[in-house]
């Protein structure tokens, strides 16, 4: 291949109306329009989707797996956010 290779794109497909877009894989393409067309040919040959997003992989900032615990720690000690934390007195319904 001559010159630098075309950039990497991450592909997200909405399987059906009402569902959210889900990451399905990645591909190389020189620009967004071709990335979209390639994504259609590569990831929806069997009508797997009704909508596609392509995002330049370089535009994604990811949290690092090493700092995962520390990063998500603040949520760990807030059990009172879950309804199961609360005791419901006997005889109470619709709560």
């Amino acid at each position: 291949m001559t010159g630098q290779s075309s950039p990497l794109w991450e592909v997200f497909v909405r399987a059906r109306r009402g569902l959210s877009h889900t990451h399905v894989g990645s591909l190389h393409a020189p620009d967004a329009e071709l990335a979209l067309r390639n994504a259609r040919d590569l990831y929806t040959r069997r009508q797997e989707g009704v909508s596609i997003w392509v995002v330049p992989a370089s535009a994604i900032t990811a949290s690092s797996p090493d700092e995962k615990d520390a990063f998500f720690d603040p949520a760990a000690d807030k059990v009172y956010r879950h309804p199961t934390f609360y005791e419901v007195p006997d005889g109470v319904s619709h709560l």
Partner: protein
Amino acid sequence: MYGNDFAPPEDAPGGGLLGEVEAAEAALREAAARARRGAPAPDEDVEAYFTDVIDADQKIEPRDWMPEAYRKTLIRQIAQHAHSEIIGMQPEGNWISRAPSLKRKAILLAKVQDEAGHGLYLYAAAETLGISRDELVDLLLDGRQKYSSIFNYPTLTWADVGAIGWLVDGAAIVNQVPLCRCSYGPYARAMIRVCKEESFHQRQGYEILHTLAHGTEAQKAMAQDAVDRWWYPSLAMFGPPDGDSTHSAQSMAWKIKRFSNDELRQRFVDMCVGQAEVLGLRIPDPDLRWNEERQAYDYTQPDYAELMRVIKGNGPCNRERMTHRQRAHADGAWVREAAAAYAAKRAERKAVAA
């Protein structure tokens, strides 16, 4: 079926394998939901953490720590798998223009296009391990990495397209279904996608052979001839016998590989016997017979000396396949250049307009 990857051989051939793919997919989700193992603690040994994740049947993801040998093994395996899908388009591509009907032509086109797609899913999975697409393509083009030897055999008649679908895609499925449970997340997910598509490949091949085998005497003879030529090379697709297989033990420990070459080969033989009977075609092995004690078929091993010869580059079509691939890549250079130039021009205009 979770935890015991395979259904017993008496299960319906196609349906059973698809069921296993779905079970693998369900297991992947279940393992992700179960035992929520966070990142290693600051003072925890990363290697122990890696082993923990694998023991829990969870997935290693691209940015996790992994042993260098694990990464290298996976890059090699996934890349060679991708190369096989790409080179694998050639033997059947040879028949697209000569398919006997418009329907068969459309089906074969779709099948070959799928194989291109498989190659691309797999290249993308390999790239998550830190190797670039260009490097991967170069490894194939200059022969530093191999592709499956099966594609170095010629497709002489239309029946070969049927035999490839039934036997070659069939063997590939038996090999690949356990990979849906591979410990490396991107590879496992790519394999789930691939396996779901493969079952159409196997069935269209089987249907071609079934039609021929129930046609004229000449058509039946053509089908039999194709099975005669593709049977042993298909058995060889599972690789050397367990005693000679070098990477197996480590790959098993890492849960990259789940079954030995011989186990998978046996499974394939057991599956094929009944399918051949329905076709009314003979498997070219005079020593093929049911072994009551083993509850499996005894069969003749493929010629491993021949396999080694083909791997070393001396099969019937090695040179042709490589030359074709190199030429196709070189002929496509202007398209890649034009697309890059167009993208650059548009980006420039956008920058000026902004």
